């Protein structure tokens, strides 16, 4: 079943690498960014591999938002972003209720929706086949400030609003099937130590 009359269907298909660069370009206050498994964190790495406030998750699919929630609770003065794929979020939908219940003002979830399990060969997710709407789910879970980005200009506006007003915020963007081009170093202990040191620095 394909639906043409949904809010999701009325958004442009964008590019994850380009949008990730737009996000990172707006970060000037040592914001924490947690990249979800695979392509989400490869594009985060490609946007700026020197950024110590990035955490590059490995195999714990679906845990980008919970990890970001832990950072947000520990450091309420720091903005914290989770960049998560639609298939990953589908594995851990309950975390949206947990996040809504805690209502962290400083947490931003970005959902990359390509409707496929891209890294395993592009198989469609069940959510794609059913027409699942991430923004509707997030709002129904209690994250009221949840929006689809219609195009790059609106994506910019939504990110800027999320960085400067009380959240939690969720931004969903439809993206194409271009794979991440620059894989992260496979060095989890270094990433954990660098991120820990970065989190010990005050918010700029």
């Amino acid at each position, binding site marked *: 079943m394909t639906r043409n009359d949904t809010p999701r269907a009325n958004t442009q298909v964008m590019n994850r690498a380009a949008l990730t660069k737009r996000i990172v370009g707006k970060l000037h206050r040592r914001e924490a960014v947690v990249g979800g498994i695979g392509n989400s964190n490869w594009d985060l790495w490609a946007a700026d591999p020197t950024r110590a406030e990035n955490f590059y998750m*490995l195999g*714990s699919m*679906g845990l980008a938002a919970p990890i970001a929630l*832990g950072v947000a609770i520990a*450091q309420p003065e720091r903005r914290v972003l989770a960049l998560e794929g639609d298939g990953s979020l589908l594995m851990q939908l309950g*975390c949206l209720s*947990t996040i809504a219940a805690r209502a962290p003002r400083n947490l931003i979830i970005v959902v990359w929706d390509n409707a496929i399990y891209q890294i395993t060969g592009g198989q469609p997710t069940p959510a794609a086949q059913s027409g699942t709407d991430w923004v509707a789910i997030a709002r129904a879970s209690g994250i009221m400030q949840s929006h689809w980005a219609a195009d790059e200009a609106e994506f910019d506006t939504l990110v800027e609003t999320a960085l400067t007003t009380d959240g939690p915020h969720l931004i969903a963007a439809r993206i194409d099937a271009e794979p991440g081009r620059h894989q992260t170093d496979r060095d989890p202990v270094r990433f954990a130590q660098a991120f820990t040191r970065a989190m010990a620095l005050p918010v700029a």
Partner: protein
Amino acid sequence: MTTAAPSHWPGEILAAFKAQDVRLVPYVPDNVLRPLIAAIEADPHFTAFPCAREEEAIGIAAGAVMSGMRAACLMQTSGFATLPNALASLVCAFQLPVVMVVSERGTLGEFNPGQAIVCRTMRPILDSMGIEHHTLTRLDECGFQADRALRQAFATRWPACLILSPLLTARPQ
């Protein structure tokens, strides 16, 4: 469902958390843990809240501990059994001192066959990843065990698991 015998084991665990500066306690509820959860939620030192799934609690604790806030995740045996992937690929791979406190069901009088089987998987899972675990059985020892296990976890940056045996939580002491 077992009912906790009157004892002060929750106070011993709570005191160890405080001594080791654990402040964040995400949990998935369990009947045996009820008095510990109630004591923690009544104490303003702690931020404690329920999660929809145990993996979430592990992710939250991982993010918090890298950001300067020590955490302990509370759960039941069957919930622990959902965790091997998160423990391997997040907690162990990144060497994060995430602490788990598991109330042990499936042994010493369990009525539910499913719980009895899943209980047998817990220690082999922990052992297979080299995660330090201690089974707390006696009121006069549990505070020392909890305090020392947490101290070692944070000092050596490695996860630890405290297993609350029915010998501690259900036996009159």
